[in-house]
C-alpha cells in the first residue's frame, strides 16, 4: 500500500529516526513535546488517543479489498466477486466495519435469526450516510433444497412484535458460489433508516427470515444456496472472522475529501 513518489539521488528520501552523526541541529525533541505533537496529529485523525489493539485482530477481507481498490492495486484483490460500492462511497471519507455481537437468537422451526451490531463507537460528530449488511453465501451452510427467499427486517430484538421489512430477496442458484466457493449478499441501508433503527442506543438489530420460495421444486442442489450467520463447530477465529455477518458504515467526519476522489489535490 505504499504510495508512489520521486526517488532522491540517494535513498528515496528515507530519514532515519536518529541522525547518523550527533549534531545540535539534529537533536531530537524532548519526549513531552513529541507526545504533544503526536496527540495533535491523532486528534486530527479523529482519535482521542493512540489505539493499542490486541495482537492478531482479524481484518475483514472486504475492508482490505476496499483499500486495495482505492489504491488501484487491483491485482491484490482477494475476493473475485468484489464490487466497489461507488454509490456508498461517493460522499463518504470514512468506512467502518462491525462484526455482529456474537449472540445469535434463532428458531429453526421458523427459520428466523436475529443478529445485532454495536455501533456506539461511531463518533458523534461523524455523519453516517449509508450502510451495508453483508451476509456470506457459501457451500458450508445449507438452506435446504429449492430456491429460498430471504426477508430482512429491522428489529430491536428477537421478540420485536413489529419488525420493519427492509428488503426481500430471492436466493436462487448462485453461480458465484459454485465458482468462487462463496459470495457476499449485500443489503443497503440509508441514513434515515439507520438513525431510526438504533434510535440513539448505538445498537442495530436485524431479523433474517428464510422461506422456501417453492417447496415443490426439488430439482436444484441445496448446496448452492447457503447463508453464513453462525459459526461452525470447531471453526477457528480467523476463518470465522472472514465469514461472519459484517455491517459496514459509510460516513463523513466533516474533514477532507471523500474516498472516491483518489489522489485529489487541495490548494
Amino acid at each position, binding site marked *: *500500500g505504499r*504510495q508512489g513518489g520521486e526517488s532522491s539521488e540517494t535513498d528515496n528520501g528515507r530519514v532515519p529516526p536518529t*541522525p*547518523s552523526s550527533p549534531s545540535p541541529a539534529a537533536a531530537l525533541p524532548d519526549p513531552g513535546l513529541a507526545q504533544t505533537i503526536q496527540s495533535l496529529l491523532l486528534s*486530527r485523525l479523529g482519535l482521542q488517543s493512540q489505539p*493499542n489493539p490486541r495482537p492478531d485482530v482479524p481484518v475483514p477481507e472486504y475492508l482490505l479489498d*476496499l*483499500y486495495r481498490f482505492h489504491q488501484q492495486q487491483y491485482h491484490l484483490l482477494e475476493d473475485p466477486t468484489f464490487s466497489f460500492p461507488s454509490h456508498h462511497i461517493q460522499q463518504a471519507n*470514512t468506512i467502518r466495519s462491525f462484526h455482529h455481537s456474537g449472540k445469535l437468537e434463532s428458531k429453526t422451526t421458523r427459520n428466523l435469526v436475529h443478529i445485532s451490531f454495536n455501533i456506539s463507537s461511531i463518533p458523534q460528530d461523524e455523519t453516517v450516510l449509508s450502510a451495508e449488511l453483508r451476509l456470506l453465501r457459501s457451500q458450508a451452510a445449507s438452506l435446504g433444497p429449492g430456491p429460498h427467499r430471504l426477508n430482512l427486517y429491522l428489529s430491536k430484538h428477537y421478540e420485536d412484535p413489529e419488525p420493519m421489512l427492509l428488503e426481500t430477496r430471492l436466493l436462487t442458484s448462485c453461480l458465484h458460489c459454485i465458482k468462487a466457493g462463496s459470495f457476499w449478499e449485500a443489503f443497503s441501508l440509508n441514513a434515515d433508516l439507520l438513525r431510526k433503527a438504533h434510535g440513539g442506543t448505538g445498537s442495530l438489530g436485524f431479523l433474517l427470515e428464510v422461506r422456501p420460495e417453492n417447496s415443490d421444486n426439488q430439482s436444484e442442489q441445496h448446496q448452492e444456496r447457503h447463508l453464513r450467520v453462525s459459526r461452525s463447530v470447531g471453526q477457528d477465529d480467523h476463518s470465522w472472522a472472514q465469514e461472519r455477518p459484517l455491517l459496514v458504515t459509510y460516513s463523513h467526519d466533516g474533514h477532507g475529501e471523500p474516498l472516491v476522489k483518489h489522489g485529489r489535490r487541495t490548494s
Partner: protein
Amino acid sequence: GNSNWGDDKGEVSWSDRGRVKRNGSPAKLKRLSRGRCRRHPLHVDFRDVGWHKWIIAPSGYDAFFCLGECRYPLADHMNASSHAVVQTMVNSVNGAVPRACCVPTSLSPIALLYLDNHDRVVLKNYQDMVVESCGC
C-alpha cells in the same frame, strides 16, 4: 588517484568526494536549503514513529517536504504568489525584509486502514498528508 582531482600540491583530496551523505543528514539539508525552492522526497515509515501496531496499511508513505530559497527574480515555475513576488523584489533592495517562504502550495490526501480504540477496522481518507507541489 586522478591528478586532475588533486589540490595545488598534486595530492588527491577526498573531503568533498569520498564521503557519501545519505538520508537527510544536516549537511545535505543545508545544501538543499541553498538551492531553489522545490519539493524534496521524504518517506514516512509508520514503524519509525511506532504507529505500525494500529495502522494496517500502508506501512508508510511518501510525504515530501518543501525546502529551498525564494530568490529574486522568481521564475514562473516557482509557483509564487503575487505577494511573494513583491516581497522578493523588496528583499532584493532591502535585505532587512526577509525572502518569501518555500511552502507547500498543494496537498493531497492519503487513505489509512487502521484499528481504532475498539479493535475495529476503519478506512479513512486523511486530507493534506502529501505535498504535491511547493512554491514561494
